[in-house]
Structure formats: C-alpha cells, structure tokens
C-alpha cells in the first residue's frame, strides 16, 4: 500500500514539475518572441512594464483574464468550450517523456519517443474541435489546413526519429541522450546531428510545421483567415490556445535538443560537473535549457526572416520533399548499421 502511495506521490511531483517548467518557459517565451522579432524589425518591442519590458507577460495575462468571454450564438457550445481545455491538456502530454537532466524526467517510458509522437498527434483533435465548434468559415478553413498539415508532416517527423532510434537501439529519451555523451578528442561532441544530418533537417522542418509556426503557419495565417481556428475565441480561452501553442514550441525544441544536440551533455563541462555532487544536476539543466533556447532563437530568427508558404506548396513539400528524404535516410542508416555489424 505504501508503495502505491509512494508511486502516486512521485507521479504528482513529476506532473507539477513538468507544468511548472513549461509555464515558466512559456511566460518568458512570449516576452522573448516579441523582443527578438522587434529587434529583427529594428524596433524596441515591449519596454514599458518592468526592466526591458520583462513584466509584459504578466500584464498580458491580467488583460486576458479580465476580458469578456464570448461564445458565438451559433456555436456548438460543448465542443467550443471543451476545445481550449483539450488543446492545453494534449500540449502538456509529450513533455512527460522528455528529460532535462540525467533522471530528471517525469516518466522514463521504454517507448518514449514513440509515445511523444503519438500524444503529439492528439492536439490536432483539439484544433479541429475549435474549428468546428466555432461554426465560422475562417475557423473551419484553418482547421482543415491544420488537419492536412499535421497529418502530412507527422510521417516524415516519425521517420526522421527512426535513424536515431536505430543507432541507439532504444526508444527511451534517457538512453538516446546517454548515447551522445562521449566526444572525439574530448572536445568535438558525438551528437546525432553529425551522424544524422539528413534526419536533422527533415525533423527541423517537420517539427516547425507541427508547431504551426512561420513558414508553416497556414492554419492561422492572419492575412487570409483572420486568425484561423481560434478566430472566435476571446479572453481566457484564447489565452489557453496561445499557451498550448507556446508549449508546443518549448516541447518541440526540447525534443530536437534531446534527439540531435546531445541533451544535457556538453564536452568538457558535463564531465567536470560529474564530481560536483547534487550540483551536477544544476549544470545539466543549465546546459539543456541553454541548448533549448539556442534552438528557440533559431526558430524565432526563421520567423523574422522567411515568408509563409502557399497552401499548395505546403502539402507538396511534405509529401514530395521531406517524405522521400526521410525514407532515404532510414534506408541509408539501415545499410550503414548492417555493414558495421549492428549498432
């Protein structure tokens, strides 16, 4: 009985830690995104609330909390109200299987990477619920684009993970990070971005599409669809969609770091930190978060630089560009691993 209580307690701690980590990063990200995009546009960005405008997220939150909650008259009320909750919930799920340090993981699942791919695909349902429940033509169009986009890009996304999984021989994210711990000559890290460059490019493109960010933000392209699937949402429900979107951003970047950029490992630094006792976890988390923000900054840079793809190009790029590339990479990895006599 006490074992059961203990495991429930452990699960609760994991859940709270995941939500806390994501929430803090999301709050910071909303500020960072506006600031980075502003600097790319040669503007200042938010600079009134607090030093460097750092309190802007809190001001935004208060604004959204106090706004009127509007439900359209012709909306499907149950689906309309359930959609933001589902979006938030489904966005949280994949984070459980991503570790930010050795053992610092909510649930080290044996089928970890596959679990992430599976629950990440659920968020499409929430978007479709919002699109349908709003009973609005712009929402509906945005929802259909989301469905087409996420179904098309899910396949290259999963296939691009396959090469890494084949090398490691495990689906657990902890094992995948541990497999990238060593380095050539002690300084050049053995990250999978060097072993799997094709997979890295495919994964990067596909994960941006799954996040729905520029250049693949067709589901909510504001110039044609007002705001896509969340056109009719206001106040707190709108905030939940935005929150879910930024959680996708954090989780996608964290996954990229885990699979291709060595997770919490950094040559010279992490081996030195091993002798620090409990402090080594601080170093690991710092390394992981630093890498994560490097990826996030890259994607913000992309957003500030590129334009939106056209609808007809978007599906073609996924099916005719990324999918063959991902398949080629799987075959190539298989051949090389077989020639070398297993992983």
């Amino acid at each position: 009985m006490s074992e059961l209580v203990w495991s429930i307690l452990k699960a609760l701690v994991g859940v709270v830690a995941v939500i806390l980590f994501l929430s803090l990063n999301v709050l910071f990200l909303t500020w960072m995104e506006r600031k980075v995009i502003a600097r790319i546009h040669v503007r200042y960005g938010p600079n009134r609330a607090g030093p460097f405008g750092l309190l802007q997220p809190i001001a935004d939150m208060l604004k959204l909390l106090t706004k009127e909650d509007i439900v359209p008259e012709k909306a499907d009320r149950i689906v309309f109200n359930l959609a933001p909750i589902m979006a938030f919930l489904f966005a949280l799920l994949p984070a459980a299987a991503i570790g930010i340090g050795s053992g610092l993981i909510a649930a080290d699942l044996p089928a970890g990477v596959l679990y992430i791919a599976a629950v990440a695909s659920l968020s499409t349902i929430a978007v479709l619920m919002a699109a349908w429940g709003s009973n609005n033509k712009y929402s509906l169009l945005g929802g259909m684009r989301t469905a087409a986009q996420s179904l098309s890009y899910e396949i290259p996304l999963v296939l691009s993970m396959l090469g890494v999984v084949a090398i490691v021989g495990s689906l657990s994210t902890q094992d995948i990070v541990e497999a990238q711990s060593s380095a050539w000559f002690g300084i050049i890290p053995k990250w999978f971005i060097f072993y799997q460059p094709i997979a890295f490019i495919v994964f990067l493109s596909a994960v941006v599409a799954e996040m729905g960010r520029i250049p693949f933000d067709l589901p909510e392209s504001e110039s044609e669809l007002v705001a896509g699937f969340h056109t009719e949402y206001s106040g707190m429900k709108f905030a939940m969609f935005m929150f879910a979107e930024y959680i996708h951003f954090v989780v996608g970047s964290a996954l990229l770091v885990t699979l291709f950029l060595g997770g919490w490992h950094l040559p010279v630094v992490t081996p030195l930190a091993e002798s620090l006792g409990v402090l080594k976890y601080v170093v690991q988390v710092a390394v992981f978060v630093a890498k994560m923000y490097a990826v996030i900054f890259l994607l913000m840079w992309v957003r500030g630089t590129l334009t939106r793809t056209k609808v007809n190009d978007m599906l073609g790029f996924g099916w005719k560009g990324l999918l063959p590339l991902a398949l080629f990479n799987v075959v190539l990895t298989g051949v090389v691993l077989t020639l070398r006599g297993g992983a």
Partner: protein
Amino acid sequence: MIQELVFLVISLFVIAGAAGVVFAQRLFHAVLSLALCLLSVAAVYITLGAEFLAVIQVLVYAGGVVVLFLFAVMLTRSDLQLRREPLESFAPVSAVLFGVLVLFYIARTGFVPQGERALAPGDVASVGQVIFSPKAYALPFELVGILLLAAMVGAIYLARRDERW
C-alpha cells in the same frame, strides 16, 4: 483490488464513448465520442502492461483515424442539422441478435485469465522479433502490407477523375 477499480473506471469511459458514438445526434459528436472510446481502450492496454500496443493505439487510431474522420465530416459539412432517422425495421432485430451473440461468448469465458502471455508486452524489441522473424509472423505481415498497398492504389484510382495526372 486497485487494479479492478482502475479497470472499472476505464471501462466506464470505454462504454460511455461507445454509447456516445451510437446515440449522438450530430456526426461530429459521434466521432469525438469514438476518440474517447479509443483512448480509453489504450488505457486498458496500459493496465495490461502492453505499453507499446497502447502507444500504437493512440498514434494510429486517435491521432490518425479520428483526425481523418473529423476531416471528412468537416469537408462534407454533412451534419449541420442532422437528425436521427427513425429506426429501420431490421435494426433492432440485428442489434438484439448481435447482443445475444456477444453475451454468449462473454458468458463462456467466465473471466478466467487465458494462461501466460506469449511475449513480453510493452517491449518493442520482442514485438519486432515476433513480427519480423520468418518462423512467426513475417509472411502474414508482408501480406497485410501488400493488401494495404492494393487498397491505396485502388483509392488513388477512384479519386482521380481524369487522366491528366
């Protein structure tokens, strides 16, 4: 004791989802109920220790099939004011017959565990060994692959209306 309790709660969700599929007034709600049902079945798999199967269930059924269903409903806009049609005369008869059949088989099992599991569930490696080893399921697996390919070719043939592409 706790296992039975968990199973009961999950079963309630499965049944509620299944009932929703049948009784929902609108097609969209029916598909969402189907999603609830399929996700709850995945939860049942987890309680049985078949983690891999549960993940595949979520990936293929909830993430793939349900999304495609919702997509189709939205494309056709078929259920804006759909009302349930009166029951066809044969529908209750077939429902009762099927119910009797299912109850018959449930009564026969007597809820006794069916012996040891053939392979360690949740273990991706052993599932892969069984599927791809020539002595076990390699041939059926390849045949299913060919069947799916044939279905796909057929679907593409039906979908293209003219010869230009």
